């Protein structure tokens, strides 16, 4: 794994911020979120060239060999810019599964094209109930003469409708194993789900005796899923912290510029004190996300605790800041043309994507031994 200095991380973040400043503006986001695929292939290529898409993929597979710490910093930038696209699905979650699995063949076949952005992969890990726990998997795998096939339903599959490769968790021989599925194969039906966050893409996928390639020889794989999910949770926490900070900055700037009663509204305690409270939430979210990233990078024994803490702290902070921002802006933020609601929609989506804050608070307490 490559080593990154503080300066490396800073310049990585700066470069990404400039790129998004050029090609990931609010106008770009609004244009992209109305497209069926929900991402800008041109920007996606640039992100791949910059090494963002394959950031955490091993260098031997053409990735950047970076870890959670670098990933978290990068996601703060993409979260701030409301980046549309399968970065989390393909570059983080799917790549994370393939790197956690012991399946040299699959890694060699898939990771290079994921790293260079030419292949979009995603993971199907839960059913219609959501939940991202083994119990919620509703796909069954059957083997006949060494050939595997899948039947059942997976839902809330991020960017499932644009994926070239699906990594599917399915019940096999009384455990959960992982399978590789070509979405164009027979018996696969991919239905896009309408999302409240229009910058997101979700799909429901049904399998009916669909041919699938078993990964890691069908070894029990939920621990692998958890490891990939931990990397994803850290990334999501970074996205939420970055989103919260951008919304707070936007709101504070507006409070300085907007004049009512002959004064900038930011000079009124009602606004000023809300902003101070939001700063506390935002700083706490940043601390939690970065701490979780570092703990995961260090393989610390309490990394799980740190990740749960970041999961609910960052989700609640982004939601609270995005919600308060609309109130603080007033009428203008009630218009579609203002970006505030785009952040609120993203915040509400991020807070549910891989488990809700209450779920993670409960998990946090259990991890603390209570």
């Amino acid at each position, binding site marked *: 794994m490559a080593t990154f200095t503080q300066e490396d991380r800073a310049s990585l973040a700066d470069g990404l911020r400039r790129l998004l400043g050029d090609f990931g503006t609010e106008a770009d986001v609004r244009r992209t979120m109305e497209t069926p695929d929900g991402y800008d292939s041109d920007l996606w290529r640039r992100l791949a060239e910059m090494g963002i898409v394959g950031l955490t993929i091993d260098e031997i597979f053409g990735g950047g060999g970076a870890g959670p710490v670098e990933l978290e910093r990068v996601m703060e930038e993409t979260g701030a810019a409301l980046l549309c696209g399968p970065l989390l699905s393909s570059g983080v979650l799917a790549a994370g599964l393939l790197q956690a699995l012991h399946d040299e063949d699959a890694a060699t076949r898939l990771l290079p094209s994921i790293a260079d952005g030419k292949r979009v992969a995603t993971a199907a890990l839960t059913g219609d*109930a*959501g*939940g991202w726990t083994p119990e919620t998997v509703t796909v069954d795998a059957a083997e006949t003469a060494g050939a595997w096939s899948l039947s059942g339903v997976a839902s*809330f599959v991020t960017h499932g409708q644009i994926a070239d490769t699906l990594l599917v968790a399915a019940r096999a021989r009384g455990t959960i194993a992982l399978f590789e599925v070509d979405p164009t194969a027979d018996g696969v039906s991919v239905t896009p*789900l*309408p*999302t*409240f*966050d229009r910058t*997101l893409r*979700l799909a429901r996928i049904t399998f009916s005796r669909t041919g699938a390639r078993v990964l890691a020889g069908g070894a029990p794989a939920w621990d692998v899923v958890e490891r990939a999910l931990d990397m994803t949770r850290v990334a999501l926490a970074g996205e939420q912290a970055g989103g919260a900070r951008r919304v707070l900055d936007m709101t504070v700037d507006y409070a300085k510029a907007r*004049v*009512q*009663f*002959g*004064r900038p*509204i930011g000079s*009124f305690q*009602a*606004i000023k004190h809300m902003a101070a409270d939001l700063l506390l939430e935002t700083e706490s979210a940043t601390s939690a996300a970065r701490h979780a990233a570092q703990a995961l990078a260090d393989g610390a024994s309490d990394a799980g605790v740190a990740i749960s803490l970041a999961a609910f702290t960052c989700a609640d902070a982004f939601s609270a800041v995005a*919600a308060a921002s*609309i*109130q603080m802006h*007033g*009428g*203008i*933020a*009630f*218009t*579609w*043309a*203002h970006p*505030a*609601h785009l952040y*609120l929609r993203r915040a*509400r*989506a991020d807070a*549910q*994507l891989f488990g*809700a804050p*209450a779920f993670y608070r409960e998990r946090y307490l259990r991890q603390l031994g209570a």
Partner: protein
Amino acid sequence: MSQADDDLREEVRTWLAANWESDQKGRSPAGPPAGAATPWLTKVVEARWAVPRWPREWYGRALTDAQARIVELEFAAAGAPGSGQDRANLWANTALAHGTQSFKARIVPALLKGEVGMCLLYSEPGAGSDLAGVRTRAERHGDQFVINGQKVWTSMAADADYGMLIARTDWDAPKHKGLSFFFLPMKQPGVEVRPLRQITDEAHFNEVFLTDAIAPAENLLGPLGGGWGVLLTALAYERSVMGEGARGPRSGSPGPSGETNLIALAREAGRLNDPAMRQDIAQVTAYKMLNRLNTARGKADLAQGASSPIMSLGKLAMSRILHEEARVRTELLGAQSLLEGPNHPRAEDANFLSLNAYFTSIGGGTDQIQRTIIGERMLGLPKEPEVDRDIPFRQVRGV
């Protein structure tokens, strides 16, 4: 109950029995909507039941409030609309109170009969919380005013025949003293109405662009430069109507969320046995009940002539109810709340509410403005220093 009251009740009953067939169109409490004109409304007006508190020369009967309530009760009992407009018809009350004789003679009957559609031209992009800071300009040229500026958050603007407009006629007077109030004809080239897309992806409101729009001088309500006073009485009417639970044009709507309550949703979502959720469900359900109890008590106090601070708390309470309900609905739905659209009505409820709640917490005065009003008017707390109060408006920062 006096004999006179009984006679009155008898008279209304008899008249309704003779004239009302229950298949007729209703009215909105803020006044008949445009095109709501019906033979029935005309009948009610001509029979002097529309505004019984008003003087006889204005379609009324000069009844006391108590007597007028008797008339309204009988109309309500029969399900017949059109009475009580002396309390509830914002437009007609404003016109009667502040219009010139000739203007009133023309507009008031039309308003009572629902023959003209109305809208409000108050808020501006630069004057939201600070309504007295409007910068729409009205200049007198001969016997008419030429109006330039932009208004926003105007509902029903497309159908309206007139807009009640607050505009600035004197830029050297302090902000509250340079305003004038007009009935602006909407169907003219100088008035452009553009629908405004809301965060809910609906468009219930409009931006209204005024470019050399014309208002005849006789459409000026109240004295020149006295517009703020007229506006305050108009807003008071609006609040009194809203206070009665009817939703004025600038108040919010709970939307789909009204359809099912939290308990039903929790049961449906299989979360009704979650003790943590039960606490939240109980609290939000309680907030709603408490708001109803507060309103009922406030009305009772008012009926007894006692002043009651409660009414003005309703909007603030409703804002909390809507935001909290959105939060709890979202938590009950979990991952389902990621979705929207007709196939996911519960998610649609929660998501819509999470956005539309701002309609109540921002529209018609933000929660923050409401708290200031409650603190100052209800609790008598002193005002903040007002940096823009006593200086010529053109010198106010940001103008």
